[in-house]
C-alpha cells in the first residue's frame, strides 16, 4: 500500500473546478485510489474517482488529505496526484 499526503492549494478548497480536474486525473489511472482527511482511519477513506465523494469530503484550502493506492505504478501515480492537489487549480 502506497500512501502520500497533500495540502490542498486551491483557494476554494477541493470542490467545483479543482475537484473536477482531480477526479478526471484519477479516472485516467489503471489503479484504484482512495482519499481521506489526514487523521481519519484508512477504512473510512473514499473512492477518489468519485466527484460526489470528493465533494462530501469537504476539504478546504490548507487542509491535509491522504491518498492511498495499491499495485503497479502506485507510487508514480500518487506523486502525480499530489502535484495536482498542491497546485492552485482555481487560479489557472
Amino acid at each position, binding site marked *: 500500500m502506497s500512501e502520500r499526503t497533500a495540502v490542498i492549494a486551491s483557494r*476554494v478548497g477541493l*470542490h*467545483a*473546478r479543482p475537484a*473536477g480536474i482531480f*477526479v*478526471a486525473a484519477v479516472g485516467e489511472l489503471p489503479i484504484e485510489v482512495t482519499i481521506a482527511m489526514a487523521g481519519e482511519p484508512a477504512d473510512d477513506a*473514499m*473512492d477518489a*474517482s*468519485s*466527484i*460526489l*465523494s470528493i*465533494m*462530501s469530503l*469537504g476539504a478546504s484550502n490548507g487542509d491535509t488529505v491522504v491518498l492511498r493506492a495499491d499495485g503497479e505504478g502506485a507510487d508514480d501515480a500518487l506523486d502525480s496526484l499530489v502535484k495536482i492537489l498542491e497546485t492552485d487549480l482555481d487560479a489557472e
Partner: protein
Amino acid sequence: MQTLSGKAPFDQAETGRTFTGVGVSPGRIIGSVLMMPHAVREPGVGERLADGTSAEEASAALRAAAKAVQTNLTARSVGASGAGREVLEATALMANDPMLVKAAVKLIINGASAERAIWDAAASVAEMLHNLGGYMAERATDVLDVRGRIVAELRGVPAPGIPYSDTPFILVGEDLAPADTATLDPSKVLALVTSSGGPQSHTAIIARALGLPAVVAALGVDGLTDGARVFVDGAAGTILVNPGGAEVALAEAWETTTAALALFDGTGRLADGHLVPLLSNVGGAADAVKAAAAGAEGVGLLRTEFCFLERETEPTIAEQVAAYRGVFDAFPGKKVVVRTLDAGADKPLPFLTDASEPNPALGVRGYRTDFTSPGVLERQLQSIAQAAEDTQAQVWVMAPMIATAEEAEHFAGLCAAAGLKTPGVMVEVPSAALTAASILQHVDFVSLGTNDLTQYAMAADRQLGTLAALNTPWQPAVLHLIRLTVAGSIDEGNNKPVGVCGEAAADPALAVVLVGLGVSTLSMTARALSSVAAVLASVTLPEARQLAGLALTAHSATDARRLVREKLPILNTLGL
C-alpha cells in the same frame, strides 16, 4: 380556448390556429418548434425489478445509461463556454460517478428496478450535499438533474431540460427553471413560448435580457409538436400555426425595424423636446461598455452584487475598486448610480445573508445587512469613493431596501463620512414611497425599483407564476405609489430627481406613463433603450400626463395597459 389533443401528429388542419398568452418581450419571428420535454415522472415508490429482468441485466442497463448521459453532457460541454461549460463538465462527472452508481446497483441487487434505484440513490446523495450547506447544498440540484437524465435514458424518452439542436428553433414548454437559463444558447433559440409563468417569471426575465421574443401563459401550446412552423408575436402575445404571407411580411418588417431600432442617438426626449435621460442598468464593466455603445446617457443602476455573486468571502477594497472603476471609465462625464450590495432573497451572498430565514423577501436583505454585518457597507462606500477618484464619471450612490427616513439619514451619514457627495436611496418598499418627502430631506435623489415595489405593494411573490396577474407594474396601486413618490419630491421643494430603474422602465408604453407621472430619468437594460426612445419621441409631455391619468384611474392592470397602448399607435407600427 381549446387545446390540441395529446401528441396528435401535426397537420395542415392546424393552419391558422392561434394561441394567445402574455407578450413579455417584443419581436415577430417565424421558426420551427422544439418542445421542452416534461420533467421526468418519479418511478413508483418501491418499484421492483420487472419479471424476467435479472439484477445483473438491470445493473448493466443502469451503467450503460449513466455512461450515455455522461458522454452526452461531455459532448455538449465542448460547445459551451464560461459558466455554462463548467456546470456541464461537473454534471457529466456526476452522471457516471462510482459512488452514485454503486449505491444504485446495491439497491438493484436488493430487488429495486433500475429507475427506482437511481432515483433513491441520488436522493440520498442530494440530501447529504444539502446537509453540508453552502456551495455543496447548491450542487444537490445538479445531482437531481443528473438523476432525471439517467431515468429518461433508461426509459428511452428525451432528456429533461432545453433540447439540443444544431439549427435555431422556437422553444415551447411549460416554464423555464433558473437552471435552464445556464444552458440556453441564444444563438440557437429564436423565441420562447411557455404555457405557464408570468411577466416576472424566469422565462420573461431571460428573454428580455437576451432580446428574444417571448410569450408566456399561452394556454394550449403544450399540445404543439416538434417541427411545427409557427409565427410568434412577442408584443401582442400571440402564436399562429402555419403562418401565411401576411405573417412572413410582418416578420421581415420586424427584422428591418430591429435594425432601425438598434439606433439610439443618445438623447432621450419627448416630441415637444422635454428631456428624459435614458440610462442603463449594468452588472459590471462588460455590461457598461455595451451600454455606452448603445447610447446610454449614463448608468442608472450598477448592481454591485453581480460583481461578487460567486464569492464566499467579502471582496477586498482593491478588488472592489477595480470592478467599479471599469464601469466609471466607460462613462466619462456621465452619471453612474452605484447601488450598494443588494444581497438576500433571490440573490444570496454567503458572507452577508442567512439562508435559513423563513421569509427572505421580508428578511435581512439590501441595506438591512448593515444591521447584521456592520462594516461591509462602510468598506464598500470607501471602495466606491476610491474608485471615483481620477475618473470623470459623476458618481452617485444609493442604498437598496430603505424603509424609513431614519435609515436614509443613516445612509447619507455613511456616504458623507466616505467622502461621497451624492447619496440617494431606492424606493421599493411601499413605506418609502409614502414618506418620500421625509426621506428626500436627507438624500439627494430616489430611484424606484418597480420589481420589488410591485411584489411588496401587491403582496405577491415575484417568482410565483400563479400570481403573475398581480405582479405587474401596470397595477394602478403601484402607479399610485410612484405618483406619491414624485409628490414627495415636489413637497420637499428642491426639485430632487425621482428615477425608475426597474423592469417597468424597459416597457415602452409604461415608460410614457412613468414620464407622465413626473419621473425624471429612466434606467433599463441596454437592449430596450432604442425602443423606449422611439416611443417617447412620439408623445408630448401633456399627452404623457393624460395617459398617466388613464392608467391611474383604470379598473385593473390589464385595462391600464390596454387603454394606454390604444393611444400609442406607434407601438403597433413598430411591433412593440
